[in-house]
């Protein structure tokens, strides 16, 4: 809770600091605020308390996810440092909006009540609509913003309708009370309740870009500024999964047989279509969007399984996925700055011109693919294990097949990176970038060698 307050103060301070001239001050304030918030979050570990009439519940689950997204935002701040060099006019607003979105994410992981969840989702989404359009002169950015806004509002409407229907049936917003309502009225639960669950799931699936509610994702990822895309691919996704799992577990786990069918179909579609659609992509950001959707499919497996291993598996997967994604988008950002292109072809020879960056990039891609020694391998492994524990065998088989397909498009990038090409120039790395890349790659390897520490947290 303290971390939320710190974050809010940081956000407001950033807005005011933006009136000054120095951009590095913004950077410093942001970093300091995030580190403080991270430490305060860690201090919450082991606590179990309910605040504001059980509207917010702080427990280990929320603390772990909060720390994960705060850490991710910290990394994103580090790789945002070239915005400072380019003297972005709206930097203070971008930073502040990111922090506000982060607050929304933190609320999404620790809600005890569907109204709080709604509030979290909106607090997360509205700054993002603006952020997606933060490159004001770019048509693509504006289009992305507009699309995201329209489709996002559409999904929000779904979500609210779901909440309303469930409230209509059970008379409560509190997740635990809904759960006990289900237990008490096992046979005479009205149909609108079930419909509510379905609509609720549809609304949430939009946020995590699960097929067939993913349409915003490739377009928005491509159009939005890369920094914002990074934020969407990591923090939003992590928070979204934390929220959907928490909601389904706390409120509807007693009806799991019922909604699992729907989620099963969504997972299947997500895994299959995203892997296939990614194959022919030529732009890195669009490819990463499909990769993100595909990863959503994997995490959905753990949500679908809904057993005691799921939280750990989701935390591990989202965390390692965020690490890899930050590196990849960081590299795209650097590359875009120097060449102005994000197509895979333009990356040819990148690794040869910048060996260290190339190795880190490759490591991140290997982690996303799920090759051993990187964290990504154990992430996928635990996801599959979790799903098998709940007897979802066939969808795991599909998952493994899509993993194999995914090797193709990830290795297409790796192949391009290390091709012979003399036109590539050396891209210098400034210190914040180096720090972020170093931390992320070390963590990727550490999670790959000692996965138990993280997986056993929850």
């Amino acid at each position: 809770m303290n971390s939320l307050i710190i974050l809010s103060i940081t956000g407001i301070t950033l807005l005011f600091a933006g009136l000054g001239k120095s951009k590095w001050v913004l950077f410093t304030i942001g970093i300091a605020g995030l580190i403080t918030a991270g430490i305060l979050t860690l201090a919450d570990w082991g606590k179990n308390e309910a605040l504001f009439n059980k509207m917010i519940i702080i427990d280990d689950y929320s603390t772990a996810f909060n720390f994960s997204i705060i850490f991710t935002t910290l990394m994103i701040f580090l790789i945002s440092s070239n915005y400072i060099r380019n003297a972005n006019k709206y930097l203070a607003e971008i930073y502040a909006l990111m922090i506000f979105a982060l607050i929304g994410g933190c609320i999404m992981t620790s809600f005890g009540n569907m109204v709080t969840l709604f509030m979290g989702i909106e607090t997360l989404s509205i700054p993002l609509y603006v952020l997606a359009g933060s490159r004001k002169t770019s048509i693509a950015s504006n289009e992305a913003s507009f699309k995201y806004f329209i489709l996002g509002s559409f999904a929000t409407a779904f979500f609210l309708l779901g909440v309303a229907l469930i409230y209509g049936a059970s008379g409560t917003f509190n997740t635990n009370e809904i759960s006990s309502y289900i237990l008490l009225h096992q046979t005479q639960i009205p149909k609108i309740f079930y419909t509510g669950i379905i609509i609720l799931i549809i609304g949430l699936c939009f946020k995590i870009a699960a097929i067939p509610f993913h349409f915003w994702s490739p377009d928005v990822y491509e159009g939005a500024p890369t920094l914002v895309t990074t934020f969407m691919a990591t923090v939003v996704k992590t928070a979204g999964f934390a929220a959907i799992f928490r909601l389904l577990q706390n409120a509807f786990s007693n009806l799991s047989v019922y909604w699992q069918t729907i989620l099963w179909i969504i997972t299947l579609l997500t895994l299959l279509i995203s892997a296939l659609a990614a194959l022919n992509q030529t732009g890195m950001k669009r490819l990463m969007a499909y990769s993100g959707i595909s990863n959503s499919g994997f995490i959905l497996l753990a949500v679908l399984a809904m057993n005691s291993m799921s939280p750990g598996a989701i935390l591990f997967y989202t965390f390692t996925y965020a690490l890899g994604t930050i590196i990849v988008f960081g590299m795209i950002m650097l590359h875009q700055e120097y060449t102005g292109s994000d197509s895979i072809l333009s990356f040819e020879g990148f690794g040869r011109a910048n060996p260290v960056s190339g190795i880190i990039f490759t490591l991140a891609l290997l982690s996303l693919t799920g090759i051993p020694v990187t964290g990504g391998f154990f992430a996928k492994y635990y996801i599959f294990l979790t799903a098998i524990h709940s007897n979802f065998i066939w969808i795991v088989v599909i998952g493994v097949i899509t993993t194999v397909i995914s090797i193709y498009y990830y290795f297409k990038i790796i192949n391009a990176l290390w091709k012979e090409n003399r036109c590539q120039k050396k891209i210098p790395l400034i210190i914040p970038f180096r720090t972020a890349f170093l931390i992320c790659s070390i963590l990727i390897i550490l999670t790959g060698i000692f996965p138990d520490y993280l997986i056993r947290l929850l």
Partner: protein
Amino acid sequence: MKLCNGFSLSINHNFITQPPLAIPFLIIIHELLLNFTNFVIKFTIMIITKIYIPQDYLPVIIQTIIVFGFVGTTILITHLLGPNRNTKEKLENFECGIESFGNARSPFSVKYFLIAILFVLFDVQVIFFYPWALNLKELGNQGFFEMLFFLGVLIVGFIYIVLKDAFKWNQ
């Protein structure tokens, strides 16, 4: 058309002259038709047996009927009751003052919208004061300070807007 005729003719022809070939063909068609009807019947039965009486949605339906009914009725009644005498002047966009010219959709400064949005924002925030004012006594000191804090946040926002030059017209 021609092709179609030819096709049907040739089938007839075959049927007459070469029964050994046509009969299995017919049997297949028959089987297919049977299966299809079977499927349709079964599906219909399934829907009929499984369909439930939508009593849960009754309030929603009633609400919908009322909403649409109200709108429809109102429009209808105004049309029926009101006298309907259209003149050229009456169909003008602006029916009084100077004569209109050009298009109404001319661009004007975004500052208007900014001011309007900001007004709405603060206006909506101030609405919170009404319930608070009503319950001031029950809320006591804590409520008072919480509202002060809320006001503080608003003022911080206001200061920010001022510093951002949102109210300066000539920029």
